[in-house]
């Protein structure tokens, strides 16, 4: 089990982490969700040993590792944009941690092949990492981090630089892999979909603090404050938040006045996101799954399910 206890990191012009505590149980994947600049990456740097905390401590499996240097922690890190070793080939990258550990060469070779198989890159051993596509590089970075069997795996926006379709596919692959290997992991991202898909629990960070954590459903049902609600995509208005799925939109029949007007309709995969201006001027985002949805400019009635309203 990894415990981050009251960690604070102060940079000259900003407090990057402000009294952050987080626990990750063995075999658990925790997603850390937050906008850029919220301190997510600094948190990973502290845990991996690349950044000394100004206060607080780290305990891994009962051992205080706060002062241990990065190369002795046995914590794996998948960097944003991968940070592969350009001057080594694919096998050289994956083998690196095994060599540092002092494994005998035959074992290293076997283990490298095993990992490349695991990430679907069998036979890529001698390829130069510069010739790989973004998705392949991401897989090599993952294999490299997993090879020395880290006690905890940290992933810093690992899919951030990939295009949407590839990201969706790798997200599923990662989920399967985590479950299969029983990895203890912290997954940092600014993307709700990734956080909710991969994290058994999600910690929401903002301005160097963890403002809330819980399961995806818990967060969605009861965001901790207005900013969190807004970040998660709820409608925030007059001190309360309304979940888009709790708003029912019905076309006004001819002769009816309705209570709002549709300003825009945007299809997003299987659902349609409607932007609706109430007659009192407020704008709400609603979601419908219907093909026959109201178009921009149409008058509508709206009805809000009270269960979808969050008040603080």
């Amino acid at each position, binding site marked *: 089990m990894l415990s981050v206890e009251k960690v604070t990191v102060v940079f000259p012009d900003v407090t990057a982490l402000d009294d952050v505590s987080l626990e990750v149980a063995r075999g658990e994947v925790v997603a850390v969700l937050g906008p850029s600049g919220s301190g997510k990456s600094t948190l990973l740097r502290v845990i991996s040993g*690349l950044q000394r905390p100004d206060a607080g401590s780290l305990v891994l499996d009962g051992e205080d590792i706060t002062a*241990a*240097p*990065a*190369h002795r922690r046995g*914590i794996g890190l998948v*960097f944003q944009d991968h*940070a592969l070793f350009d001057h080594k080939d694919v096998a050289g990258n994956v083998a690196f941690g095994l060599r540092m550990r002092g494994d005998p060469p035959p074992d290293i070779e076997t283990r490298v092949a095993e990992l490349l198989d695991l990430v679907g890159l069998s036979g890529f051993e001698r390829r130069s990492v510069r010739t790989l596509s973004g998705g392949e590089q991401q897989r090599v970075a993952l294999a490299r*981090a997993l090879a020395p069997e880290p006690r905890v795996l940290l992933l810093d926006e690992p899919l951030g630089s990939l295009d949407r379709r590839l990201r969706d596919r790798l997200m599923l692959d990662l989920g399967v892999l985590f479950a299969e290997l029983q990895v203890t992991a912290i997954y940092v991202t600014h993307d709700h979909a990734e956080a909710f898909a991969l994290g058994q629990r999600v910690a929401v960070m903002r301005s160097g603090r963890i403002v809330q954590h819980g399961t995806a459903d818990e967060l969605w049902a009861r965001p901790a404050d207005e900013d969190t609600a807004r970040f998660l995509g709820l409608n925030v208005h007059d001190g309360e938040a309304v979940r888009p799925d709790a708003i029912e939109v019905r076309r006004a029949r001819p002769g009816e006045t309705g209570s709002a007007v549709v300003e825009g309709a945007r299809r997003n995969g299987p659902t349609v996101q409607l932007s609706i201006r109430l007659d009192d001027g407020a704008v709400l985002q609603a979601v419908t799954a219907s093909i026959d949805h109201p178009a921009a400019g149409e008058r509508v009635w709206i009805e809000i399910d009270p269960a979808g309203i969050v008040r603080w």
Partner: protein
Amino acid sequence: MDRDRHSLSERVWRVATYAVPLGFLALFFAYPLLSILERGLTVAPFDVLTDPLTRDVVWFTFWQALASTALTFAIGLPAAYVLGRYEFPGRSVVRALVVVPFVLPTVVVALAFIAVLPTDLERGWVAILVGHAFFNVAVVVLIVGTFWAGLDRRVSEAAATLGAGPWRSFREVTLPLLAPALAAAASIVFLFSFTSFGIVLILGGPAYSTIEAEIYNQAVRIFDLRAAAVLSLVQLLCVGLAVWIALKLEAVLGAARGSQPERDVLRRPGTRREWGAVAGSLAALAAFLGIPLAVLVERSVSIGDGFSLAAYRALSDPTTALLATPWEAVWNSVTYAGAATAIAVVVGGLAAFAVAGSRGPRVLDLLLMLPLGASAVMLGFGFVIAFDSAPIDFRAAPWIVPVAQALVAIPFVVRIVAPTLKAIDERQREAAAVLGATPARVRREIDLPIAGRALAVAAGFAFAISLGEFGATVFLARPDAPTLPVAIFRFLSRPGELNAAQAYALAVVLMGLTAISVFVVGQVRVRRSGWL
């Protein structure tokens, strides 16, 4: 705990990266410099400073450096444009060949222009300017051309869509973007022309002398060591100023560096006019660089009216010009240069690590860059007056020449290796650390393999520079152990056709050796950064 042992070895490494280079520089750079200071300033130096001769020399040094810079740009810019904008067959060969004049020994270049210029222009300011342009055209072509090739073509395309014609778009968009590269190249060419020694000494004739050449004249020919010392101080001030400006400009250049990959910027010439421009500017450059060298070779085999290899055959015979056979001079040059390269790579390599990994005081970094401001003649002269009495009478020591040559080469080594080390993405080192690599292991696995190629290139340059080093070596080489440039100089100052032909022949040998070391460097691929 184990960790403490590591941080101790880390501390030892960190101290070594500073202590070795700084110790070397303190003994072989600072101490000779102080000796010059002492020699020049014990009596108030006003008589030397107000001497009309000094005034003339300083004035000539400045205007010839300015004029040389202008001429170098006039010759180099068209080729820089062509290399910066067009892809054509042989482009990389052109880039490689253009470096050759830059590393040629000054003595060889001076000789080439004596061979090619008409007799009445052979000695004088015209010869000096042309010689400097020959040398420095590579600086303009490479710095400006490379920077140009990194400028996003879309920016000038955007200007075109906004209604700017080609000239307007060049003036308002390209030129401002190019300015840092132009400024950096100009300051470097100015500096090199300002401190040039061999060219001025040989091509200047009796009438034209720069500060650098005058230090030599006063010290060796007139034997007025105090005047030489005062002139050295004047030179030091001027060069210090010029280096400071050059470094400032270079920082600007680094910040503004174009980031486009070349293949997105370069395109093949489309119209016949474009092909003409490419071919024309390259042909002109090739003629300017190639003809003097070709004539040099021709002269080495011309005796009387016919061709003969007599000058080459005579290289193994004793000669009145030297206290050794010319071939012994070749051997001396190669061994001295080898030793100098070893010193320069070790000291310069450690210094590069210190500069690149510096979290320490900036003062130390500046100290390490100091020899950049040293002129070779000043170093040679400083050695002569600093190491003249027991227990540090090193003047006759066989290692004194390699040490002086290494001092000249070290700034180049630092400037080639340090940017490569700095350019290594810190996350590569972090990734290695997270995977279990100790700091020493990180250096071996990440820094060394990546910087190794730069070190090899630096070694090649250090070898070429040491081979051709003239300014310091001419003070220090023992009469019975001359190097090639010194031997050429001695032959040149003797009358007689065979002496001249032997000078040419030795120059050809020296050119060949330099070309080989540069060719070896060319086989090593490395990320290009900094001056070269």
